[in-house]
């Protein structure tokens, strides 16, 4: 505890340069507005991260609240041992994993979807419908990925995490993350291939 306190306030702690870590430390010192700022910055991102992972918006909203409730209650125990974003997403990841174990989310059948022309960039009503259908196709395909591939893909594609950040969030090596992403991309290619006009 004593040495952790030293690390927290040591000038050699690289995470102190993260402005969001500073906000969390301000919150720890009683600045409630700092917590509101953090929530304002990350609420939507966490919501969409969990939503894409679970495929259910209602459940994602519930878990997003749990994430920030947990952050709020960690006020007195927080130690800057990682970038704030990595720490926050790790909480969201753990809650999402636990949720997935408790519930099995049913998949949507893809039989209703026809082959789409994704080369057409012109905006018109048919194109809008196609975009919505394509979004559902993408959602379905991602939901069918193995859990770890899905997590790595979402962090990379939608949250722009680096390989190292993904590795830290998921507790894996960078090489393992690269392997996961390679397999995820290959799975996407195989599953989305029939929806792409050559």
């Amino acid at each position, binding site marked *: 505890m004593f040495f952790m306190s030293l690390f927290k306030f040591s000038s050699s702690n690289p995470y102190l340069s993260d402005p969001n870590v500073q906000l969390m430390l301000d919150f720890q010192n009683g600045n409630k507005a700092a917590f509101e700022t953090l*929530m304002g910055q990350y609420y*939507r991102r966490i919501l969409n991260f969990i939503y894409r992972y679970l495929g259910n918006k209602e459940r994602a909203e519930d878990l997003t609240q749990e994430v920030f*409730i947990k952050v709020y*209650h960690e006020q007195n125990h927080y130690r800057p041992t990682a970038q704030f974003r990595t720490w926050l997403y790790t909480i969201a990841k753990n809650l999402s994993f636990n949720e997935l174990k408790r519930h099995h989310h049913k998949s949507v059948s893809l039989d209703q979807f026809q082959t789409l022309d994704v080369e057409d960039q012109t905006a018109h009503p048919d194109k809008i419908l196609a975009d919505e259908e394509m979004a559902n196709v993408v959602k379905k395909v991602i939901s069918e990925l193995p859990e770890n591939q899905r997590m790595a893909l979402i962090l990379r594609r939608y949250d722009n995490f680096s390989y190292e950040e993904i590795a830290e969030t998921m507790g894996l090596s960078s090489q393992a993350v690269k392997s996961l992403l390679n397999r995820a991309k*290959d799975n996407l*290619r195989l599953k*989305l291939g029939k929806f792409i006009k050559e």
Partner: protein
Amino acid sequence: MGCQGIQEMLAMYVEGELEQDQITLVKSHLSICQACQKRFQSLQKSWELLEKWQNVEPSPGYISAFWTRLASVKPSRQMAWKFNPVLVPVFATFCILILVGSVIIKNHIFSVGTPEVIVLNLSDDEVKMLENFELAESYDLIKDIDFWENLEGVEDLERTGG
């Protein structure tokens, strides 16, 4: 490098995550291999298709909903440390029993005693006996012998030379 090696790099090539020399190698191969080129295009298009899944917005009033829920939830760490008053008399009784037991055990040990305690509790006869340890060691052997009767007999024997 053959198609298999190039295809293993295509997933990272799609994101521009290769080193410059690897990029050059892949580009060169793709320019002459239609199968790998087709695979790369499929990877690239499927990667781009992911952006079709747009972000969702939180439900209206999500901030007030959060604060309302926060007010109703106790922190798990505080709940773990909450003190149950029902256990107070049980714990107190347990402590008292431990204390009393330790005192009893301690007194029992001292009643059997250290050598100093034993000596302090000796009677006068026992003390005299200890003054002559040799006699004490033989005490059990000689305690039943009537010295005075036998002593007269020994003296008589010496007098009579027998």
